[in-house]
């Protein structure tokens, strides 16, 4: 369909009133793409941790704000017990999840999920205070299926990973050379649908429950 390409680009060129883009315009447009703009972003005065947690709770996620790695492990256990979920989890093979004192009764598989897994635990790249969004990116240590296939998704986040706006969250998802990964997910609450008579139901296709554990800096 190269023909269609030329035809469409010709029609577009005609519509914008130029045959080709002169080097000066090209340079200006490229500059606009690469700028760090000082454009409008939402602002607020609330306490960052409180705002982040309350934004997530507003959209039916559960949030535990904890002080120690031991409490992270405890929060996982109580979430599973409270919701009567099997004490077996698929945990992302991410080194950042190694340092928690997971209880021995918790059966942990360090791998991507399969369709039989009920619960996945992953580590986020960032938390966006503006919206209460978790930022996750695809990489071998964090396969995207983990965020969508299981019934329960537990995400662990450190206080120092909280960033202000969505734009900051995006930057946290890039790799060290600013490379863009295959997938960047901004996740804000569990899966939901209002497609039957405009009434909200949770767990449409993705996780029915989203549990976020935010570990405060010491």
């Amino acid at each position, binding site marked *: 369909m*190269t023909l*269609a390409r030329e035809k469409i680009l010709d029609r577009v060129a005609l519509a914008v009133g130029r045959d080709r883009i002169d080097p000066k315009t090209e340079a200006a447009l490229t500059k606009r793409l690469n700028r760090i703009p000082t454009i*409008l972003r939402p602002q607020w005065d609330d306490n960052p941790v409180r705002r982040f947690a309350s934004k997530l709770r507003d*959209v039916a996620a559960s949030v535990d704000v904890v002080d120690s790695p031991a409490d992270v492990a405890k929060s996982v256990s109580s979430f599973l017990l409270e919701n009567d979920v099997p004490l077996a989890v698929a945990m992302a093979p991410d080194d950042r999840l190694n340092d928690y004192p997971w209880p021995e009764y918790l059966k942990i598989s360090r791998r991507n999920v399969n369709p039989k897994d009920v619960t996945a635990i992953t580590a986020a790249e960032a938390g966006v205070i503006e919206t209460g969004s978790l930022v996750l990116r695809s990489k071998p240590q964090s396969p995207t299926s983990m965020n969508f296939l299981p019934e329960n998704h537990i995400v662990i986040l450190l206080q120092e990973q909280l960033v202000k706006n969505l734009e900051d969250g995006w930057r946290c998802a890039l790799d060290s050379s600013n490379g863009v990964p295959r*997938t960047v997910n*901004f996740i804000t609450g569990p*899966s939901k649908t209002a497609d039957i008579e405009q009434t909200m139901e949770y767990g*449409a296709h993705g996780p029915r429950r989203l549990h976020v554990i935010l570990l405060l800096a010491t």
Partner: protein
Amino acid sequence: MESKSHDFKVRSGQALKDPFLQSALENLSLGFVESRRKCAEALPEFEALRDLGKNIYDHTLENLDFYLRRYEEKVIESGGHVHWASTPDEACRIATDICDQAKAKKVIRGKSMIGEEMGINDALDEAGFETTETDLGEYILQLAEEPPSHIVAPAIHKTKDEISDLFQVYHADRGFTERQTERTALVQEARQVLRESFISADVGITGANFLIAETGSNIIVTNEGNGDLTCTLPKVHIVTAAIDKVIPSVEDAMVLLRLLGRSATGQEITAYTTFTTGPKRAEDDDGPEEYHVILLDNGRSTMLANEFRDMLRCIRCGACMNHCPVYGSVGGHAYGWVYPGPMGSVLTPMMVGLDKAVDLPNACTLNGRCQDVCPVRIPLPKLLRAHRTWQHERKFNSSVFRFGLGIWTFFARHPNLYQFCTRIVMSVMGSLGRRKGVFNRMPFAGGWTQARDLPTPQGKTFQAAWRAKQREKKQ
């Protein structure tokens, strides 16, 4: 999808007599309209963001040649393929070719309006692929063999009972023999049935809310997470998008995302906002091996060149239809094609033919609410008026209408005669209707007086009253 837009009057008549549709439309205006208002009020920057959103699109459209090329380069750089299609048929052929080459049997779809515009499900069916819609609303409609009636909430016209019936019939061979009547049970049944489709699919086809020239990414916004499973699990991911979906950068995308959720459903942000760039990386554990983008024109490059360019800013939030009294009365199916409401009345004639959707631009009271809420400030009433002018110039409107308008035009051009005649008509009507104070029947206006009474004119004509007032002022 074949357009039935020429049938607007008949279809809207049917819609007005459908009690469930009427209550669903009332809920829609209570729900979406109210949550949008709250959400907009809670963000002090909202109005400024609307201006910014408009400016971003105006800039992008002025330089669409640059951004399309840059976007294509970046997709290729990230390992993806870009295909171009002038018409829906071309786009469908590209999609079925990709599925053929992938030796696919099963195809899953994430909800997209561009897919409806292309008629991609029919094309895939004809080509012999087993196609499943995965958005719950679209899935229900696929079973019911109906088109969506709202661009964000496609199945608002379906009752829970109808859905129970559909699931009972179509899920029996999947082991679900009991008829479910509770909403939660219905959602869970669909989840389990569709889960199998997700896992066994060879190709996933999604739309795109935005395409980003800076990175070659596409953005998908959902609440269900179906779009994410669609673009993660199958080995091939096809993105279908129109050429006006391209925007410059991630920064621009964030501005538009802040407008989209709030305007559509009154959400600050949807549950899932996903940026996808190219196929899976070599080291990744999941994700598709192939990433294709099909860019469809379908009349947009023509609109870019004429007075309808403003319409290309549309981000498909649905706020215009949620706030439209006409949509609120007749629902989406009356409009007869893919896009309903004010945005649909502007787009449909451009895409299916000006002569095939004559009623749509006229099914508007020009009250301006759509423009008031449009996140990117599209002057929808102005565009609908432009359609009316086009229709009149091309003589697509009815001869009765043209005759009536001709008479009015004659009088409007002869103000003295106009005033003389209105004075006579008014005094005749005034004396005829003095006793009752209203007319409940009127020659040539039966359609109007059937539903309401026409008050008897009182006092002088407006112009006479105005002149008297001016004289008073001078004295």
